[in-house]
């Protein structure tokens, strides 16, 4: 994600850092590259112009030119300006009233329906009691799609069977929500063009009925130069309160994120990071700026891990490591927890410098590896899992057949497991202080 842009920035900044001192001419040169990088990333033309001129002004200042580390100073200026551009502070949802209404609006195919379900799940996880309302009667099977998604995440969905128009649906849904005590209703609307005045009027009507505390504009992060016009078009007619950027897990360079924020002045609140219903993240401007500059995003990773890992299981695991009773079964549980975090690639991309490493070494991540390992362990008997030393050749052959792998794969896994046990023993012996030495050896 955003890789190409961070790639470019890193190269530019490396070049600048290489010069012991910064001069006006090499700053010009670097800025030209920054401009090109941003334009190729689909950042809106006028936004790029403003950005460049404000970076230039700051970079030409004494603080940068006369500092001992001008390259780093320049990086800092670009980073700060980028964060600025993305909107300094995190912006959460502001939900007022009971039920508080959230309307999702946007162009066709931007991902409103999926986002509605994702957002509902996000709110449910935070202890709210959301109600999903499908009001897209235009696209074939859109209502059915949302119903299915709702039942997948076990959230109640308004039944609009037989209703002919979105305003009726909204009125009725509000009434039902009031009676049944839902505290948030999320309304999915049909995709429309902001220049289609008939359909935009309908949105206004829905807004009058729902009096929503949030109107979220759902936008595809791969959108080109027109992103600002559409966002502004919707904002002018219904007044959006924020933006949700979808399909952020591709290689889109995220130019839309930069420009929409600037032209509408409305914050980006969430990003969609995958096809599964739990792939939605709160948008953190400063972290994204860091990600563009490839400074990694450890904070997001830690948060994700915290919400996914089971505290109790973690403690049990610690005990097991202490007592040296870590079995293959535990190993499998660990793998399953890691899988819950998302794809390996998305986890790794949050680690600083990873995209550079990936480029340099041409690392291909095999997402299937985890499933393969799981299959191998699943093909073992409980006894074999707890006591792998009994795994003789014929047992290994059977396991390979059962899991559809080769004996060499089974051997590899068992070797890895033995190595892991050795590591754990060392860890235990060395205590917390020995940890550093251990990792230095490994590096």
């Amino acid at each position, binding site marked *: 994600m955003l890789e190409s842009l961070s790639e470019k920035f890193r190269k530019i900044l490396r070049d600048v850092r290489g010069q012991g001192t910064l001069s006006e001419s090499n700053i010009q040169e670097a800025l030209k590259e920054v401009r*090109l990088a941003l*334009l*190729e*990333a*689909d950042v*809106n*033309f006028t936004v790029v112009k403003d950005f460049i001129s404000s970076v230039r002004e700051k970079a030409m200042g004494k603080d940068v030119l006369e500092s001992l580390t001008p390259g780093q100073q320049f990086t800092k200026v670009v980073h700060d300006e980028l964060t600025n551009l993305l909107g300094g502070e995190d912006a959460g949802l502001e939900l007022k009233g009971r039920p508080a209404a959230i309307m999702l609006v946007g*162009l*066709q*195919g*931007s*991902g409103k329906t999926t986002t509605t379900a994702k957002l509902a799940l996000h709110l449910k996880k935070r202890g709210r009691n959301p109600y999903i309302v499908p009001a897209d009667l235009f*696209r*074939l*099977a*859109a209502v*059915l*799609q*949302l*119903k*299915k*998604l709702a039942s*997948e995440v076990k959230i109640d969905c308004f039944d609009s069977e037989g209703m002919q128009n979105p305003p009726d649906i909204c009125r009725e849904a509000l009434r039902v929500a009031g009676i049944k005590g839902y505290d948030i209703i999320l309304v999915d609307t049909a995709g429309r*063009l*902001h*220049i289609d005045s008939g359909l935009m009027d309908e949105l206004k009507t829905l807004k009058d009925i729902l009096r929503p505390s949030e109107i979220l504009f759902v936008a*595809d992060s*791969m*959108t*080109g*130069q*027109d*992103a600002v*016009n*559409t966002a502004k*078009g919707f904002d002018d007619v219904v007044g959006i309160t924020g933006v949700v950027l*979808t*399909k952020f*897990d*591709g*290689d*889109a*360079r995220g*130019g*839309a994120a930069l420009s929409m924020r600037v032209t509408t002045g409305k914050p980006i609140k969430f990003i969609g990071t995958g*096809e599964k219903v739990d792939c939605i993240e709160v948008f953190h401007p400063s972290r994204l700026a860091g990600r563009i500059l490839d400074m990694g995003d450890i904070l997001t990773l830690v948060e994700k891990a915290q919400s996914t890992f089971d505290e109790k299981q973690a403690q049990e695991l610690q005990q097991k490591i202490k007592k040296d009773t870590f079995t293959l079964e535990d190993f499998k549980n660990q793998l399953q927890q890691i899988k819950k975090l998302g794809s390996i690639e998305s986890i790794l991309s949050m680690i600083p410098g990873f995209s550079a490493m990936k480029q340099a070494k041409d690392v*291909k*991540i095999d*997402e*299937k590896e985890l499933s393969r390992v799981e299959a191998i362990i699943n093909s073992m008997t409980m006894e074999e899992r707890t006591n792998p030393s009994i795994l003789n050749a014929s047992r290994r052959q059977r396991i390979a057949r059962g899991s559809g792998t080769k004996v060499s794969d089974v051997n590899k896994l068992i070797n890895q497991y033995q190595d892991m046990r050795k590591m754990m023993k060392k860890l235990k012996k060395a205590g917390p202080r020995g940890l550093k030495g251990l990792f230095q050896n490994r590096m």
Partner: protein
Amino acid sequence: MFKRLKAGFESLKAGLTRTHNAIMGSVESTLTGVSREVLLERLEESLISSDVGVRTSAEIVDRLRSVLAGWDNEKLKQHLKSYIYDILKVVEKPLEINKSPFVIMVLGVNGVGKTTTIGKLASRYSSEGKSVVLAAGDTFRAAAIEQLEGWGRRAGCPVIKQAHGGDPGAVAFDAMKAAVARRADVVILDTAGRLHTKVNLMEELKKVKKVVSREVPDAPHENLLVLDASTGQNALNQAKLFNEAVGVTGIALTKLDGTAKGGIIVAIAGELKIPIRFIGVGEGIDDLRDFDASDFVEALI
């Protein structure tokens, strides 16, 4: 017939009006009292902000610079038109149904309008008297199968499907068998939307393609990549990676009726030279048209 063509051109032109204004409007309004360089710079800016891309825009402007002595508004317009036409002419190759069954596999990232494009194609071929079979290969997205079935009903053609969550390869297999048995003229295979960067999902696509070609020799005859006209430079990456995975033989550009500039098509034509088969200019069932370079340029500039 002629009237219908004319109407088509009008709606394309209406769809692209804003693009037209974007490219020529800013240039024309500032024509007086500026130097040639400033004029060309503004033109380059307008091209970039129509998603033509930095590189292609620079090329076009460089060519203009080399031939343009004075700054005659009409001449500038003519040259600009002819350059863009040159780029687009190369990729103006309508899809010919020349085998039976003719298998079209439809690809693209999420939300570009694959299923809708299939629906429109199905009704077009049916109305031409061809027998069409649709295959619900998007087994991932909730209700994608039902959406395709809706289109099948409208166009009056059968939809081959399996359960939600099933194997798309198996759907492809069934569809090919059914098409051969029924002597269908055209089979259109839907696939789940996938981001081009997801290695596993691209592998799945290769597998589906393999199944298709095992059942019907030389099939799929067309790997149609659907692109959203409002996509920016990322569309180039999409085209490249889908092409690397399964080989893209044609492009359908959808949603040209918005304010999206559609300039990306110039960049794709210039850099990748993949034939552009169809453009979508509205939500109506016959708003999917053959791509015509000169119409497109006329509407654009």
